[in-house]
């Protein structure tokens, strides 16, 4: 039985490792990727069925069978020298992967991801923490017992539904309210992401509040402090590690969220910090483009590079959360937290 448990634990670890390996391997294709489409010779002598024998006799409109094909040569034949330096291309400010001169500037995507995430956390973290403070310290027991499960249910809410809600309702509401030029923008996506991450912030913060020793609360009151003073001056500082963990987990959730941003952000790869302009995030880019990218092409590898960056960012953040903030804060508050 123990062996079985060990097996499962290791297979979970192995799965994560293998995912990382897989992504890294596909990313390395950048170095060797020769665009498959570039190798094309350009002869389109396909067989045409239906045109000559079966239908030709009854064709009403003869010119129907002589279509002007879009000039494929424009998009297909990029000369290898068109990419002077891949690194330069990746550091560019334009993301235009389907083009006669593909531009793979990652900067707008990184800025877009950060912008949407920041907006989302700006909403989710304060609201979540304040809600948790209310639920943990001020709400009557029966209310707390109902709020918590309901909010936790919200954590499992399908992001497609949240995205759709933002697309239809939030977008119109914000445009009417703020008179924004763009109906879909970073703010709308950020609100959607905040809805998605609010339950995480709430639950974890609430847990860390309820885990505080009861004596802190009682001692504070006994010293004559108002309840809000006790919360603001004693309990919130004591629960700081929990708050940080909540914020970082919310960051991870939001940073990698795909569907909501895909639907509600407008997906224009603009390099700007304005919250009311459309954004294209890294995750949404992978979600939108991976489906039809030519397998093994440079574009394909670069999408994996974006995936790798996403992985690295969230992984680093989690490590920071685990080993640095937690340890430091725990040391600071040793004796208070259990």
């Amino acid at each position, binding site marked *: 039985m123990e062996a079985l448990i060990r097996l499962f634990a290791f297979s979970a670890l192995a799965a994560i490792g293998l995912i990382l390996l897989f992504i890294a391997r596909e990313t390395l294709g950048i170095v060797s990727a020769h665009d*498959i*489409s570039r*190798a*094309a*010779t*350009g002869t*389109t*002598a*396909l*067989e*045409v*069925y*239906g*045109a000559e024998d*079966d*239908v030709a006799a*009854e*064709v*009403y*409109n003869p*010119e*129907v*069978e002589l*279509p002007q*094909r*879009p*000039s*494929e040569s*424009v*998009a*297909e034949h990029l000369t290898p020298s068109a990419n002077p330096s891949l690194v330069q291309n990746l550091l560019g400010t334009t993301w*235009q*992967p*389907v*083009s*006669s001169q593909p*531009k793979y500037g990652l900067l707008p995507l990184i800025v877009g991801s950060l912008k949407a995430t920041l907006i989302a956390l700006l909403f989710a973290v304060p609201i979540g923490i304040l809600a948790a403070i209310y639920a943990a310290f001020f709400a009557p027991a029966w209310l707390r017992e109902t709020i918590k499960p309901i909010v936790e249910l919200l954590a499992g809410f399908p992001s497609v539904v949240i995205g759709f809600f933002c*697309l*239809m309702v939030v*977008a*119109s509401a914000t445009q009417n309210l703020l008179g924004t*030029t*763009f*109906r*879909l923008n970073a703010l709308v996506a950020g609100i959607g992401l905040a809805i998605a991450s609010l339950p995480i912030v709430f639950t974890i913060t609430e847990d860390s509040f309820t885990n505080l020793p009861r004596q802190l609360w009682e001692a504070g009151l006994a010293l004559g402090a108002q309840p809000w003073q006790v919360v603001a001056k004693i309990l919130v500082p004591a629960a700081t590690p929990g708050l940080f963990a909540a914020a970082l987990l919310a960051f991870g959730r939001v940073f990698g969220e795909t569907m909501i941003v895909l*639907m509600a952000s*407008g*997906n*224009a*790869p*603009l390099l700007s910090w304005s919250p009311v302009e*459309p954004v*294209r995030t890294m995750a949404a880019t992978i979600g*939108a*483009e991976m*489906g*039809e*990218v*030519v*397998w093994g092409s440079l574009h394909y590898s670069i999408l994996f590079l974006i995936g790798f960056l996403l992985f690295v960012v969230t992984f680093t953040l989690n490590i920071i959360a685990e080993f640095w903030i937690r340890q430091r804060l725990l040391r600071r508050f040793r004796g208070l937290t259990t």
Partner: protein
Amino acid sequence: MSRRRYAHLLGLGAITLLTVAALQRQTITIKGSDTMVILTQRWTEVYPHKDRVRFQVTGGGSGTGIAALINGTTDICASSRPLRPSESEQLQRKYGTRGVEVRVARDGLAVYVHRNNPVEKLTLQQVRDIFTGKITNWKQVGGPDARIILYSRENNSGTYEFFKDHVLQGQDFAPTAQHMPGTAAVVNAVAKDRWGIGYGGAAYARDIKEVAIAEAPGKPYYLPTLENVVSGRYPISRFLYFYLRERPSGELKAFIDWVLSDDGQRVVTEVGYYPIRLLRDTKRP
């Protein structure tokens, strides 16, 4: 060990069952363009010889369908764009044929604006300048003084490529163009955005206004109507294709011949696309 053998037996049994079922009624898989899913599904529903074949229709996009054709996981690939030379090459390498193309329908890409937008008509050049970002204000094309908000499809869609090749002549979209997942999303966005402009299949145009397009300044403007698209007068139109690995035979041939017949082409208009030729009794989609 015995449990494992049991599982093997079970798997073997399932495979045998499936094979037997497949032998009784041939299955034709059709995969590809999301634009064509409704059309293809309708064809398979109306097809009169359903006692002989079973259909499996999935979307995923033209590129996905072509990849499936190359990998041999689909019989028919529905595509809203012609096969690329590189893809044809891959087919050649794997099967020794360059692929067989069947033009099954025609589609017109409409340019949509909001219902209340006074702009009625644009030249192809103006549409190009709007979507490449050279024209940014409606007053430059005879409208009121307001910024033009661009809505585009995602760059993995056949519609995006068609518009880019055909209308933009291969130039890049303006970076401010917002990429929407699906034509329905574009229509929805334009319907709600007073100064929006978007493009997509004419079949989708609900609650919005289609713009009349002229091929060049001074030439007549045409709306994407049936006659204009089928005759090729409307400048933004394309064929929809079925691609096969080799010349069809047997049940596959019967199906494709039916699709190209008057009955099959009538379905095209029912769904909202344009037939490859004018039928005697076709109505505007």
